């Protein structure tokens, strides 16, 4: 990483110490994000106090980057996975009864605001736009949460929001302008074979080089097919590919490992055949 960024990053960490109560939330991610430029872009934006929206296709490392950023800044992580039923109570909090009185049971957004955490809003476009409207005051210049019936929760200066969004899946929605304007948007580039190779090597250190090459080749083939609309994004499954590589390394026949981790995930007969053919060219 650039030296000036490193210096500013260290200054940031010195300025904002982590509360002992949430020290357990500061964890090192298992995998390092590969992609220096993107990481520097994100760090610069976060240092400027911006919230970022990571936008990209499947297996472009959005979540890995989010976790890595939190670790680089040394901040506690709060994860929220968005779905169609996500509402304000899921995000901000809801009433509870403690010590003989009704109190606010903080949601992940409120907690991140209090402790200066990095709140990762995963697949933010899966929720309905009106449900996330409660986030507007949190994300813009006001930087506060106003919960009806309670005091306003001011935002800790180290608090940042990192949203991720997949674009183009069935069921995903477009984000409305009001929400998007509150983020700086980083488009995640498609993983290159070299990066994917490093990633697989890091995930399965004992895997033979030949197997990694085959998996990388197959993944790129399937990704290209999905990008060009020949198949859906179902089989473009990096987690599945890592699982397959792990199984191969443990001794399973490569073709079987790919079948159970990738090919069989296509429940559509037409697509299954196309994927199976591509697998056939790569694995004996």
């Amino acid at each position, binding site marked *: 990483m650039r030296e000036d960024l490193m210096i500013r990053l260290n200054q940031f960490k010195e300025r904002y110490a982590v509360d002992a109560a949430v020290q357990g939330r500061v964890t090192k991610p298992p995998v390092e994000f590969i992609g220096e430029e993107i990481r520097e872009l994100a760090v610069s934006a976060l240092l400027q106090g911006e919230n970022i929206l990571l936008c990209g296709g499947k297996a472009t490392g959005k979540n890995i980057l989010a976790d890595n950023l939190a670790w680089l800044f040394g901040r506690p992580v709060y994860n929220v996975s968005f779905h169609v039923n996500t509402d304000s109570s899921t995000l901000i909090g*809801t009433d509870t*009864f403690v010590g003989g009185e009704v109190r606010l049971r903080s949601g992940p957004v409120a907690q991140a605001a209090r402790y200066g955490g990095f709140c990762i809003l995963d697949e933010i476009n899966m929720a309905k736009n009106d449900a996330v409207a409660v986030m507007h005051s949190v994300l813009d210049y006001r930087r506060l949460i106003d919960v009806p019936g309670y005091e306003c929760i001011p935002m800790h200066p180290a608090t940042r929001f990192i949203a991720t969004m997949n674009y183009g899946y069935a069921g995903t929605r477009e984000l409305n302008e009001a929400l998007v304007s509150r983020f700086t948007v980083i488009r995640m580039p498609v993983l290159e074979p070299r990066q994917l190779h490093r990633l697989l090597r890091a995930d399965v250190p004992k895997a033979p080089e030949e197997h990694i090459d085959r998996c990388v080749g197959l993944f790129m083939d399937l990704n*290209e097919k999905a990008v*060009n*609309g020949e198949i859906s994004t179902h089989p473009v499954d990096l987690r599945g590919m890592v699982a397959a590589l792990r199984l191969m390394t443990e001794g399973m026949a490569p073709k079987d490992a790919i079948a159970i981790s990738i090919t069989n995930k296509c429940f559509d007969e*037409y697509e299954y*055949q196309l994927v199976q*053919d591509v697998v056939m*060219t790569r694995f*004996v």
Partner: protein
Amino acid sequence: MSIDREESLFLTVSENHSRRDYPEYILRMSQPYRQAGGMIAVYEGVILGGGDKLFGLEELNLWLRRHRYAAFDMEVLLPIAHMCLEYAVRRRLAGQRPGIAVMAEQAACELMDADPMKWRYSSRGWMSLYWLTEQFPRTATPESRRILRNFAGFEDMLRQFTRLMEGSAGCAGGRALVDQAVLLYKKIFTRYFAPDHSQDLLPNPEFSEDDLWEGEAPPPDREELPEPEETQPELKYEKAKGVMTDGIELSEEALAAVPDYLAKHFGPSFQTEKAMQEIEHAVCVGIHEGRRLLFTDGLPESAYEEKSSRADMLRESRDRNLRMLAEHEDSARQGIRSIEQAFRNALNLKNDPEIYLANHGVLVNSALWKVGRCQDPQLFHKIFRQDQSTVVVELLIDASGSQAVRQSMVALQSYLFSAALSRIQIPHRVMSYCTYGDHTVLRRFRDYEDRPEADRKILEYRATSNNRDGLALAAAGVDLLKRREEHKIVIVFSDGLPNDMVSGRTRSGAPEKYIGDAAIRDTCFQVRKLRSRGVQIIGIFLGEDDELENERMIYGSSFLRIRRAEDFGGSAGKRLSETLLAL
């Protein structure tokens, strides 16, 4: 974009996913292999993809064409070039794609067993048999071994042939590869074999008498040759291939008369000229290029009351459908209830919020007495609101001639669905589709917001002519995708056999005919295209047992088979419920 296995592999192996046509001589070279089906056709995709990646198909085509102008016999040169290309691709891509060798062996096995290229009937074809046996010894059959015994005494020629063939793996470019094929052409194929090449490929199981081994020619093989068998699991739309014909082409005059005919027999269009142009621009692309659409509400009631043969036909058809409904009144009522219940089951689950007692959430005042009295008072309601979004349904009915035998049953079944949807107030549109000449007619029986009385219009359903399922789906999808409702469902009543044998004008560069594989492939593609845009599609299968495979291919697991109206009371109703819940 609809692709088959061969094209899919071509795009993947060539590492260039832009759709493109094969150049002229490449097409001629690979056509027999692509038509052979099974693994031979699939592997052809690998060969062409590899050829494009390593040499460039345009480059290969250029050099092949030059030899055509130099008076080379292309019937001889193209198969040689194919052999060289196959070997070069297999060798050069082996490191990157080791599975290619296995695919090559499977394809070789099919070539040896079924001999779709009829190699065993020409002495030059024996060279191909020899080459495959050399490369894949396990594929040799007793017959091929017997044929190859004829090469006894020509070991030098075979050695030279093998050396030249192996040389193709090292060719740097398209020109070098074609030159290598030319070398084989000159040094082997025209030197050792008869000069009159046109006599070489014999249509009948006889051996060429003009080949080199005069006097040594084996006796004509009288054995029954095995029929080509499909041993590979492949896209199972073989049945559709069975109905494949060359199609019928309409003259310009006949095409010009189609709009008038349609207006008279189906009714005027309900879309404006501008709207039609927009829809046609969006959906009449690819294989549907140059096609037209007609959206109509059908003929007015007065058309049924005229005294003409057409009115008689219309009345007779509607009466038949009405009789069917009357005969099955009880089971129809039961069917409507079952379908209604199936939809209710699926939708109620999604609409009712689930409420749990919890220690956080919305305070329940009536439970406050528990404070200090109970250990875990659970004073709150945790409300889990399910997706409250609404649903819209599109019913599409195949109105092609193949449905004529079961017309009344189809009308009844679609009526049951429509009536059930009306009862639960789900907006739905019902249209039938068929194709006349270059026009695909979408006959609307009821629109999304029509009142329940409109359901009975479905009984005017008539089955005639051809069907372009893919185009109908795409055209219906245009309006459906504009709807605000979050859940969009299309239910297609069809026999899984899209088929438009009567085509319009033919010209160079025109899309392929909408029959057989091409039609199924397109329908598969349109279904998936709509699904990728969030539309759920269910197929209701109305065909015969042996056509079930096509339906499965098109709709995946989301299809139902309903033979009779009574079925809804039993397993079909349950199955519909399950299918809807799975969406």
